[in-house]
């Protein structure tokens, strides 16, 4: 059964009084999220992720198309009893303490004070804020706000958790904690639908992903299905002892050569080019360090779908077979 079904959702921001043209944000977006899965909603900034989430949460009206959440149409207030939501870079009432804040959201969700007492303790422990129980939110760091935001989304034990960029603003430890939390929610049978542009997070924890660009769905499916499992898409050869300018033969067959001092990283389009490159290295008197077949990554797929070009981190990149 599907937790979320989005059907040809379109949103066009109306033109302003000052003559700005109407701006399309979503263009016939359709996707479905199954119950009990972690679904990553991936896209670059301005691709329509937040707009989609706002429409699902009833904060915005779609221009056309529709959606169902937990079997109910958009606008059904009662279904919100079963949904937890954390917006992007959340702002909360900073004059409240963590305990008052969770009590407020618990009351809004219809929870009784007796239940709230232990629920708040449990949640503050879960998000690592037990020490900050009586501290006002104005004294919270960005990471702490993100975590208390997660706690408010979970206070009423929802079946579906919708998170907009839940890892933004978190340090590596905080990001791992959030990832672990999302995984534990899935283990409890809950559905998690979250948007992000941090690809490793998606690769690590998502059952399925969607890539959306300019309001259109470009790809949807399991991560391993999307990136062609078992097929080496490229080969990385690392060697040393070859100077820049001596690698013409290598550069001719490589898609990219990255040079740092005497170390060279050669990216080949496929396994067929390995043998000619190895002979070229031997001929030049170089020393082979490693040959590593590379499987396709979600990042490559994302870059391909969004039309962006990957660059090698830390290496002066030379693209297109020439070297420095």
């Amino acid at each position, binding site marked *: 059964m599907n937790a979320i079904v989005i059907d040809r959702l379109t949103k066009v921001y109306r033109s302003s009084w000052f003559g700005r043209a109407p701006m399309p944000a979503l263009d016939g977006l359709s996707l479905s999220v199954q119950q009990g899965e972690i679904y990553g909603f991936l896209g670059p900034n301005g691709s329509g992720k937040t707009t989609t989430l*706002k429409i699902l*949460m*009833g*904060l*915005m*009206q779609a221009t056309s198309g529709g959606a169902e959440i937990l079997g109910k149409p958009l606008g059904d*207030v*009662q279904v*919100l*009893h079963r*949904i937890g*939501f*954390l*917006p992007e870079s*959340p*702002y*909360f*009432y900073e*004059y*409240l303490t963590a305990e*008052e804040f969770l009590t*407020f*959201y618990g*009351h*809004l*969700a*219809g929870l009784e004070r007796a239940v709230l007492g232990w629920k708040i303790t449990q949640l503050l422990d879960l998000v690592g804020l037990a020490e900050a129980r009586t501290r006002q939110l104005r004294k919270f760091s960005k990471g702490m706000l993100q975590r208390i*935001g997660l706690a*408010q*989304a979970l206070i009423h034990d929802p079946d579906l958790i919708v998170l907009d960029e839940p890892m933004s603003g978190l340090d590596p430890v905080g990001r791992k904690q959030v990832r672990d939390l999302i995984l534990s929610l899935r283990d409890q049978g809950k559905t998690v639908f979250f948007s992000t542009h941090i690809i490793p997070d998606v690769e690590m924890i998502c059952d399925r992903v969607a890539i959306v660009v300019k309001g259109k769905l470009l790809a949807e499916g399991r991560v391993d299905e999307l990136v062609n499992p078992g097929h080496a898409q490229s080969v990385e050869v690392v060697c040393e002892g070859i100077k820049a300018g001596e690698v013409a033969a290598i550069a001719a067959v490589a898609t990219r050569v990255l040079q740092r001092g005497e170390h060279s990283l050669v990216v080949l389009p496929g396994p067929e080019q390995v043998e000619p490159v190895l002979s070229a290295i031997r001929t030049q008197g170089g020393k082979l360090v490693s040959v590593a077949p590379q499987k396709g990554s979600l990042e490559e797929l994302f870059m391909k779908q969004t039309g962006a070009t990957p660059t090698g981190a830390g290496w002066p990149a030379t693209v297109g077979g020439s070297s420095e």
Partner: protein
Amino acid sequence: MRRITVIALNTFRENLRDKILYNLLFFALLLMGGSVLLADLTIMEHRRIVTDMGLATMNLVGVIIAAFVGIGLVGKEIERRTVYTILARPITRTQFIIGKYLGLVLTLLVNVTVMLAVFIVTLWMYRTPFHAALFQAVGLIFIELLLVTAIALFFSTFSTTTLSAIMTLGFYVIGHLTTDLKGLGENSQNAAVQSVVTWLYYLCPNLDVLNVKGQASANGIVDMSYVAVASMYGLLYAALLLTAACAVFRHRDF
């Protein structure tokens, strides 16, 4: 109803923790205390000066709170995006608006009560008897505050904070000049001026109806039927504005 109460109590708590409110209240108490000094320095009737200043201060400070806190009631929630997580709860937008309104009404009630208590103490110190007319004036001031809050809330559902402030204060000023406006329209030879002035006359609330401060300071009890009709007028107008605010807010995108 429970969710409206939760929103209202949270709004009340937010106001209580806002330092500006205490500054305004302190300013009000200072003005009331100052009226005693002023009364000593003048040759006019002391009791009347203390009464006039007390009622005027209550009115002024109340309107400042109603207008400026009222504008922020919804405006701040939208600007700071706190509204996102609240409306993602099982609460309707109408419940949210009414809850915010009632929260500020509760704040105003507490403020007016504190100011009234200080006012009574001031009058007592001056051995001035307080009578029903004073309570009638304070009662109608409170109705006016309910109306100003509704005006501010209405504008803040679709406009920026600055524009809402300008429009609310504009409505307030025109609301106290409607009788003059009517006269202006009747005396004008220009058809366009007549038309605009007539529209403004019917559109803006007549806040002077709620002003019996003059009678109160002269110890003149106002007819209770007048107070009842004036109160009904103010409450009905506020209810209409609240309904309009809810209708606008229901269709707003965030």
